[in-house]
């Protein structure tokens, strides 16, 4: 048991407060299947009957509400949201009174959330049913975030909104498996549950790493038996999923956590014969946007989330200019975000009144130096490598200018990848390529040991 956890018994009635005989049967099927993996943990939906109604009402609202605001303006709900933050949230109360303009409010980052998340929980909210989500923190700021079962269940509203862009409505129900969340890590939180808002359809969170299975071939047998409507995971776990000889086909793949290259998306779409929906999502704010090639970027999903693009000094940039994605609002009332700098970078463009994040890249930009001495943005490296179906990679420029590339899952492409980098950086560029079995989670993709590499 985690040393931070106080000894306490959690019963199945707490994990599944509305469980019926059908739900119990689904849990039994998922847990006791002869080819089931070793489930290492327990969790549940934790939704009461009243919660289920709240989640369904939120879903109706989230699916029907327009998302966005007039270019150059701000959404109607923003002033009320800010006033609530300044009145009820200890951290924001220190700001004092409401400034004349929204953009005069200070910004925050992971470094502010990390030391004590209690400062961000509004005074007005009850604590008896809070849950937490932890993130490892590739930037040196691990987070422990406060949330609530209703908030966690409300993710599905935005998944449905994202799927609708691709003409998909979820169809599964009682007795069927709605989603399997696949991971591929040495250690992974795994469990089974049911989704009450989908008539207790099954949910399994599994680890594809062979260490979690009695026999590696159990993976395809188990997944074929479950035949889920949706798989959710990250590019790395999907790359492993694609190698399994599955007979069944999902209706969609939901990809989160890491950048999904166009090459891998195409390969996965071909392999599974269904749309691969790439979500820009984070623990702090949930699903923020969905990639849509038809509009050339990530379309925002949440009707109460305001997005600004800021320069490094914190000034708001006009539409079309690239800067840091900064969020206000969200649907987690236990973590109201007020000008939260995500560390991710993009430009904001409007498709009509719908905001679209263009050229979204995780983490701050890093400049790389070419053989000719020119500086190029890391986004150019992304473009050079996007035709390769690389599940996960890192590029580090050493102090002497040499590039060190670490690749996961594409050893057969390593020479072509090296050539692509030489084409970009110029003849004579030294590139060493290392194959990595697994990165075990998120990584900082681009780094440099050269001075002036971080503009």
């Amino acid at each position, binding site marked *: 048991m985690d040393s931070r956890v106080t000894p306490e018994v959690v019963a199945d009635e707490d994990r599944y407060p509305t469980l019926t005989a059908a739900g119990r049967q689904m849990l039994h099927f998922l847990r006791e299947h002869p080819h089931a993996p070793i489930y290492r*943990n327990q969790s549940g939906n934790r939704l009461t009957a009243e919660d289920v109604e709240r989640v369904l009402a939120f879903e109706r609202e989230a699916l029907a509400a327009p998302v966005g605001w007039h270019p150059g303006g701000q959404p109607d709900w923003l002033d009320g949201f800010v006033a609530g933050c300044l009145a009820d949230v200890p951290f924001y109360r220190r700001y004092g009174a409401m400034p004349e303009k929204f953009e005069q409010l200070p910004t925050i980052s992971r470094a502010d959330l990390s030391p004590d998340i209690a400062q961000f929980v509004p005074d007005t909210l009850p604590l*008896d049913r809070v849950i*937490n989500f932890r993130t490892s923190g590739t930037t040196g700021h691990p987070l422990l975030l406060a949330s609530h*079962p209703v908030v*966690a269940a409300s993710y599905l509203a935005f998944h449905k909104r994202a799927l609708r862009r691709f003409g998909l409505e979820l169809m599964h129900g009682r007795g069927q498996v709605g989603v399997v969340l696949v991971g591929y890590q040495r250690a992974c939180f795994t469990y089974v549950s049911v989704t009450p808002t989908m008539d207790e359809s099954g949910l399994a969170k599994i680890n594809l790493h062979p260490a979690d299975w009695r026999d590696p071939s159990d993976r395809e047998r188990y997944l074929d038996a479950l035949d889920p409507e949706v798989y959710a995971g990250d590019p790395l776990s999907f790359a492993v999923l694609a190698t399994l000889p599955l007979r069944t086909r999902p209706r969609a793949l939901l990809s989160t*956590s890491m950048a999904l290259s166009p090459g891998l998306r195409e390969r996965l779409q071909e392999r599974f014969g269904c749309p691969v929906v790439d979500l820009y999502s984070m623990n702090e704010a949930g699903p923020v946007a969905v990639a849509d090639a038809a509009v050339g970027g990530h379309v925002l999903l949440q009707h109460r989330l305001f997005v600004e693009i800021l320069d490094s000094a914190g*000034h708001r940039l006009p539409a079309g200019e690239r800067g840091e994605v900064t969020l206000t609002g969200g649907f987690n009332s236990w973590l109201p975000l007020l000008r939260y700098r995500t560390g991710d970078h993009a430009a904001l463009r409007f498709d009509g009144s719908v905001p679209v994040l263009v050229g979204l890249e995780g983490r701050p930009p890093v400049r790389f130096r070419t053989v000719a001495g020119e500086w190029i943005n890391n986004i150019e490296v992304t473009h050079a490598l996007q035709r390769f179906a690389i599940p996960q990679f890192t590029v580090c420029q050493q102090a002497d200018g040499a590039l060190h590339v670490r690749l996961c899952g594409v050893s057969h492409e390593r020479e072509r990848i090296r050539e692509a980098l030489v084409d970009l950086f110029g003849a004579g560029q030294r590139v060493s390529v290392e194959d990595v079995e697994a990165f075990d989670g998120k990584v900082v993709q681009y780094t440099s040991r050269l001075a002036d590499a971080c503009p």
Partner: protein
Amino acid sequence: MRRLAEAPEDFLAEPRVGGTGRIEVAAVVGDLVRMLGGDVLATDLREFTGGAGAGDRNRLAVVLLLCWLLADDWFQRVRPGAPDVLRVLREGAPELAAGVAAPKVQSDPDRREETARLVLALLGYRPAGETPAQAQDRLTSLSSAERARVLKAARSAEERARAIRQALARKAAEESADKWTRE
């Protein structure tokens, strides 16, 4: 006290901090010192430039209000020296800003009285007709009441924070709840 209540818009406006806000507080402080007949070096004004970041916004907003108060005709007649004026701003503003938001310094009658008395006391003056003991008693009583309120609020905030941390450490909280995607 009436002067504080009648502070014009410019002295209630957003101080410039980290590239945002309208009023350059350091410039206002410099003008005030010169208006009172003193000289001021750029280094004396550094702590009023907003360089300490967004968390400094409330203190600078209080500095602006103190500048307005110190620009009163009475102070122009008395002409406190530049070191004394800067000391009032350096010591008085953080003391007041620690407990209340700047707008309350202007809008709340008790905070207005406390502010006016604190400025006089820091300069070695007292309200007309009061003995030094009476002036000190009244200031202590005003600031004690405010301190008590601030302490009570701080205690209650700390209790709430502790309750949140405990709630988040419960096994049920650690087990979390279903999300269809994980980040």
